[in-house]
């Protein structure tokens, strides 16, 4: 039991670190390239938000910003905090709630990648317009996948484990 917990903890930590590392190229590299009437425009996630905001689509920009930047970042931050707090008797109830939220939100986190894959499949209008996924998307997806598995391996029971053993 103790061994299992140790391994799971390690796995979760490794995956969170992976996510944190990958989060940097995921946001720097362009996730897709839109070519509209010859105008080739490589877009990073943040660039895409900017583009949307410049186009006057403030609310949508907000949603994309939340879903693509804030939420993954918050997930990583939350998971990091949970893992750092592992074994601590403090805020165990709140930590359990946070883990639950992270786990629930996680099932929606791939929506960007899903959207991008649909865009790339549909948006092939020959010379006029085309959308192509870029390596950034791969990194982005990798961030999401690693957080998913991280939150999966760090189950809620482990929150309640302290160095003294399971809390009563």
């Amino acid at each position, binding site marked *: 039991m103790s061994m299992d917990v140790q391994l799971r903890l390690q*796995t979760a930590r490794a995956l969170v*670190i*992976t996510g944190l*590392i990958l989060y940097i190229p995921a946001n720097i590299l362009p996730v897709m390239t839109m070519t509209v*009437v*010859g105008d080739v425009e490589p877009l990073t996630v943040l660039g895409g938000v900017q583009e949307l905001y410049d186009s006057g689509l403030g609310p949508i920009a907000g949603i994309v910003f939340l879903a693509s930047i804030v939420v993954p970042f918050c997930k990583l931050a939350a998971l990091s905090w949970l893992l750092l707090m592992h074994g601590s008797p403090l805020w165990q109830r709140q930590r359990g709630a946070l883990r639950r939220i992270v786990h629930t939100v996680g099932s929606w986190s791939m929506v960007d990648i899903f959207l991008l894959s649909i865009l790339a499949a549909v948006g092939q209008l020959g010379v006029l317009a085309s959308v192509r996924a870029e390596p950034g998307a791969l990194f982005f997806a990798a961030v999401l996948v690693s957080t998913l598995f991280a939150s999966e391996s760090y189950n809620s029971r482990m929150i309640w484990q302290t160095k003294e053993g399971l809390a009563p």
Partner: protein
Amino acid sequence: MSETENPKNEPEDHGKIVRPRRARVSWAWFFPLLAAAATAWLFWSNWKSNGPTVEVEFESAPGIQAGKTPLLFRGVTAGLVSSLRLDARLQKVILKVRLKEFAAGLAREGTVFWIDQPVISLGNTSGLDALIQGNSLQARGGDGPPASYFVGHETLPLTPLESPALVLKLRAANIPFLDRGSPLYYRGVQVGSVENKELDESGNPYLRVVVEKEFARTVQSNARFWPVSATSIRIGPGGVKLDLLGLKAILLGGVQFDTFGDPGTAVKNGAEFTLYTDEIAARSTGAPVRITFRNGHGIQAGQTEIRHLGIPVGFVEAATLNVANQSVDTVVRFQPAYDKLHNTGAVFTLVRPQISLEGVSGLEALAGGPYIDCVPGPGGEIADSFSGLTFTDDGITTVQDGKDVLPITLLAKNLPPMGKGTPILYRGLIAGRILARTLDAAGTPVLEAIIHKEFARTLPRNARFWRVPAASVQAGPGVLKFDMPGLEALLQGAIAYDVFGPSENAATPGTKFELFAGESAARATSPPIRITFENGQGLLAGETQVRYLGQPVGLVESVSPMTGKVEAVIRLNDGYDFLRREGSAFAVMRLNVSLNGVTGLETVVSGIYIECVPSSGGPLRDRFTAVTPAKAALELKEQRGFEVVITAPQTTIAVDAPVSYRGVVVGKVLRKTLAGDGRDVGLSVVIDRPYASLVRDNTKFWDASGMKISLGFFNLKVQNASLETLARGGLAFATPDELGSRVKPGHEFPLNPKPRREWLRWAPSIPTGN
């Protein structure tokens, strides 16, 4: 792993107590390593793919966006504009360009950067892809030492891929229509183009032309350049030729070059050449020849051509005014093949359009500008300095006042309005020209003229000169002739000469000739004949013609009134002397309207004339008295007819009354006189020659005058021969079936008042005709 209790409580427990292995490491640590490695590799490769950063300065950078605008080299993205800024004085835009690693070679001196933007012009349409893709930065590689700061070109270079092998300067006094992009042709192949049109420090224009690498060797040190105009139209005797050098050349013109003569050496970059005005000028590469003209009418440096036998052989390179000598010095160059034309004795004549004098020969100069005609000398050394001639009035004298012409003098009472240069025609050919109008020692106006040598033998002493009016109209019944002896004569008139009658000795220089007013005056060569008229109305000296059988045979030379009469002096043309034999009749023919008919209708148009009826023989005379036209007509009739005399005690039959045979008029009453002792009236009747055989000694003549009205039982028959018979009366005659013998002219017949019945039934068979 933790211990588990055996629920079945097995008696033996083979398990061992194992210490937990705290140092176990999850395989999941592989992921962060992988992620770190991937990210690191990504950043490293990104960093590695970046070459050096260069700065390019532009006057303006339209459509350039930092971080987006690519640098294209041969169509491949070779870098990215990373930032844009203005310089400190806000005069320039400075682009920072991060080159890719493989394009690091672009950071060298000589690299040309320009902004590719859509340019739509007549010659070069470029950058169309920039219309949809946005402007881009473009580069053409240089090969200098490494550099990092560049000054961008504001315009697209003409050879975007490679730097041109050869840049030449073409100098010209003025550069008309050529402009950036105008093609450069070598024997019709485009080998380059005009890059720019610039002014040097001293303000002289020059063209920078670039020659593509593969054609660089076609330019040699002795190449000659000339512009080809967009279109050239050549109008010549061969027709109209329209030269088109392709659509591009139509819009932009072009420059052509070629090498004439020996091949030259290769040229270096930046070599200077002269842009000649046209191909002829460019082809004329011979040694300079100096020709001095007294007057430089229209000579234009670079344009005026030298022609030999009408073919261009050279051109005037320079024309300068020599104030000291009061002359125009020209420097001409011949095409190498024609260098031998300017040998000793060559004659250069400036030919320019002179409509008034050279109506035909100057016409080509009218279209093409004046040119210099070159006639090489008989041989000898090639010379390089000549004295040119000007083909003007004075020039004619200069050129032609030599052994080759025959000077003569024409005298006239009144000089016609003819100036110098008026042509002298011999049967339509120009045989000479008038040189001057002067007064001779005696105060008579004279025309000094020359006759060309080849015509001199057609000019005997007795040649007759006359004026050819600018245009003449000849009108007559059925004839309307408009005579124009040619353009030149139309403007100025002309003088013609010819020989009538046998030629005498050839004229010698200085021979004097009389100038007659017209051709008919000149043709009237006989001695003067004096004719006295009772009425000289309408007779015009120099105009009224003398005609024989309707054809002009002479002219009235003068008309002078004398007491009670008018005396006209006429002259007859050569060969009509028989008209002035004794007994010839001369009568003034005027318009005459009578019952008999209208005669002389032609005089309404042509004016009156003198009709001449020659007598059959006799010595030549030179004094005559005119007769009436009727008399003249009768004289003519008499000559041709057979005359008999009809006698009657009294008759109403008048002169001119017709004489008919079986209703056909065969003769006329010529005269009505008192015969012999005055008891009878004699009618002289002329029977036309063909019908003379109808008159026999037993022929009966009767009076056929008046109206015959026969009143029958049922009818009223009015018989009338003609209106004429009603007025003048008439004669009729019949010959019995048993023919009598022929009578002699002058035979007398009695006039019967009316025919007997059997006379009218006579119908003898008599051959008529001559």
